[in-house]
């Protein structure tokens, strides 16, 4: 088990390196420059601007420099916010995004698994149809619709929560609900499907035959098997939640890292784009590894050698 984990962790390094190299080259292929502006920049000023970021060196040299600095944890300078490093930017924005992501995830799991279980054990009843229709709506409803609707109801019609901004926990509620609902809907459907697969399996029948109480059957036996697809889905879902959402963070003016990637791509803020790519791919790789490890606990048939 431990050997497996260590081997997989080491295996992440070349994967990450390939991601870094490919993204570095792709972003540099995009036409335009980080210093493009409507107003002409004096030529000698441009020379010094390029030198400040090392853009005056050949591309391969820049790549080697970048990887070398990356290994020491230095993500470089932002060209859009020139007196901040990418490390600063991420340190500034990540706490808000993480808090939002964790709350959204908690909401998604609570609602999704709850609705999924009810749907599965009350299959083909009004409860089941009701929850699954809601889930369908939740998946179909984009955050840029759900967010403003929640704001209209809870911040502008009855003022119980602030419409946007950041500061205390009241500011987290609406964005977390907005962000988490689509995930909750998907989790509900996965949970229900997973539970239905095991509901007629031999080990559940055995448990029933042993005369175990219903809640023990549901939570100890069925859920462990039934949640496997959810856990698979949770790997990438958590990684996405932890790097934030452009739409939700813009609607609610959350000072997180959600909009960084898109904005930086438009601004050709190369090192910020790279920083977010590195962050998100690291999250994704680690999450997937955790998912693989979790299988071992969830499904007694899986063993790691």
């Amino acid at each position, binding site marked *: 088990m431990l050997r497996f984990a260590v081997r997989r962790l080491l295996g992440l390094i070349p994967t990450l390196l390939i991601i870094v190299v490919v993204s570095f080259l792709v972003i540099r292929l995009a036409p*335009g420059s980080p210093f*493009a502006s409507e107003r*002409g920049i004096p030529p000698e000023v*441009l020379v010094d601007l390029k030198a400040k970021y090392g853009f*005056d060196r050949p591309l391969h040299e820049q790549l080697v420099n970048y990887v070398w600095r990356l290994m020491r944890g230095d993500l470089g300078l932002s060209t859009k916010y020139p007196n901040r490093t990418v490390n600063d930017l991420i340190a500034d924005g990540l706490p808000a995004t993480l808090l939002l992501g964790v709350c959204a995830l908690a909401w998604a799991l609570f609602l999704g698994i709850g609705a999924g279980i009810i749907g599965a054990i009350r299959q083909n009843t009004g409860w089941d149809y009701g929850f699954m229709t809601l889930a*369908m709506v939740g998946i179909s409803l984009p955050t840029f619709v759900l967010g403003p609707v929640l704001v209209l109801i809870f911040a502008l019609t009855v003022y119980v929560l602030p*419409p*946007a901004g950041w500061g205390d926990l009241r500011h987290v509620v609406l964005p977390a609900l907005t962000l988490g609902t689509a995930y909750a809907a998907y989790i509900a459907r996965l949970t229900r499907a997973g539970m239905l697969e095991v509901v007629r399996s031999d080990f559940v029948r055995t448990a029933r035959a042993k005369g175990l109480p219903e809640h023990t059957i549901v939570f100890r036996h069925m859920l462990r098997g039934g949640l496997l697809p959810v856990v698979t889905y949770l790997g990438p879902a958590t990684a996405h939640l932890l790097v934030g959402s452009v739409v939700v963070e813009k609607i609610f003016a959350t000072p997180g890292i959600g909009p960084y990637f898109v904005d930086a791509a438009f601004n050709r803020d190369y090192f910020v784009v790279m920083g977010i790519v590195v962050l998100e791919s690291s999250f994704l790789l680690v999450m997937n590894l955790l998912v693989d490890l979790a299988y071992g606990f969830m499904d007694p048939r899986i063993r790691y050698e």
Partner: protein
Amino acid sequence: MRRSAFALLSVTLVVSVVSGCTRGDSNYYGTVEPKHGPDEIWSNLGPEPEYIDPGKSSDHTGGTVIINLFAGLLQPHPATLEPMPDLAQSWDVADEGKSYTFHLRPTTWSDGTPLTAADFVYSWRRILDPSTASKYASFLYPVRYGEMFNSRAVLVKGLGSATEADFKVLVEKTVPVDSLRMAPELDGAFVLVAGDDDARGPAREKLVRALQGASWSGHTLSASVVTSDIVAVRAPDPLTLVVDLESPVPYILNLLCFSATMPVPRHVLERLASEKKSTDLWTRPEYIVSNGPYRLMEWRFRNYMLLEKNPRYWDAAHVRTQRIRWNMVESYNTILNLYEAGELDTIGNTANIPAEFMDTLRTTGDFATAPLNTVYFYWVNTKAPPMDDARVRNALRLAIDRVSLVTHITRGGQVPSSDIVPDGLAGYAGLKSPVFDPERARKLLAEAGYGPNKPLPTITLTYNTSEGHKQIAEAIQAQWKETLGIPVEIENQEWNVYLRNLKSHNFQLARLGWVGDYPDPFTYLELLTKNSGNNHSQWSDPRYEDLLRRANLKTVKSERMALLREAEARAVEQAPLIPVYVYTRSELTKPYLMGDVINFENRHYLKYWWIDKRWYDGVPTTRLDHGFPPRPKQLMAAGEAN
């Protein structure tokens, strides 16, 4: 279920629109009772500024922060933008408008350090220093030799009476020359070497090596890359600043209100350098020292800034509000929500009211609108056929129905305009060229030889990706088709790609907006000069340039304006750019927020802002006066001050 979700959605939309208009007073949008005390204001800054360093900032948000944290030699009147004394109490003009002596009032930085004329000398040389890499360095090019320093010119001295042609031959033996500027007053000449970015440095070194100590037609030459000392700004004593200009600049006092000319605290930058820290850090709240109405207390990235009144500002007695909170919210809809809920007292000077809200909000007491110093136009690539023919360009200009465009498409009260300079700018009477003349347009096109037998080839109109620009382009496409019968294709490009194509002249017609840098017609007319660096039309016209040059030598304002008008008329008929409209700015401001008005440059001066306390007790029946200072006397015009 799907249907009921939509029902819910539409119900809430209706509820919110109704409640937005009925809560508080029916004439206002959202709450009208301040959610904070009377010594505080909540505004919205908009996007995170790039820099808040006067020497480095080049974006609008950065400029807004700087004009409120720092004070320069002059300040504009908050409503009319006429220059008024700030740190400079008075000034003398000499040498036919080419030399200014400013007499500073004794003031200090916010940490108590005295602010002297030497701070200005340091700051102006710093912004002109190419290694500062300031994108707005060209704002100080009017200062004598400023451009030479910023361009890393090589100064060759000891030329005696040698001619420019002879000297050029000598220099070109060693390096390729971009331009030469003879400087007989220095017994020398400036050389700007030509070449790629990485070739110019070595070329300069080569030139200096070749000419330093060389003897040439009986003279011994000296050569060096110019240093900051050459910039003609001096501090003969701590409260006197002497500035020599390249040539008379009629709008110099307006330029000196601009953020780029404000001083930076040399002592703080030098302390950081001595502590081996990056001098870029000086604008962080823990280090920043400023000299304007406010001090920066807190700065959370993309979140908010907190300002507090600077008790050491020389005019602190007239700063009316103790604390300002600037939120940094970018989404316009979010800003409107926050405004409606009373979490913002104004939507700020970067947010635009979405077109779909315009009709509803226009009727509220919060709404205000005013024209801006910004022109919406299309560049014409005058080297790309068929637009190399001025008649074709002019026909295109005249065939746009601008009134219909602003009434039905943009809907923000924009001013239809076929001119380059906005009408009424700083006492300039606009040309008021016809904004739509289909008859003449067809005639011009026929004169150019195009008609039913020889149709104009398809032309492409490019714009940077945006829903608003797209709608305008589509309307113009339809209008040209209808009026002139010409086929037009429209194409959108992402901003960065767009700018690259614009600069490499890879376009036929391309949209742009131009914000005037100072309230003077020249800021727009200069755009079309050959060397402006922003003239993407490739149009150059000796007669036009001559008119401009002669205009700026005039000291009598009316004579100068007449020549500028003549120049503008020339450019309008030549149509290297096709103006569409003058922008307007629409804002929402809570009725209790006083002193915040929209001026021509969209600059908002917090020192005049205050809360009308009567709104805590209900809706008052009268509006108070903003309490702005009186307009400065017209004596302030260049050359007439004493």
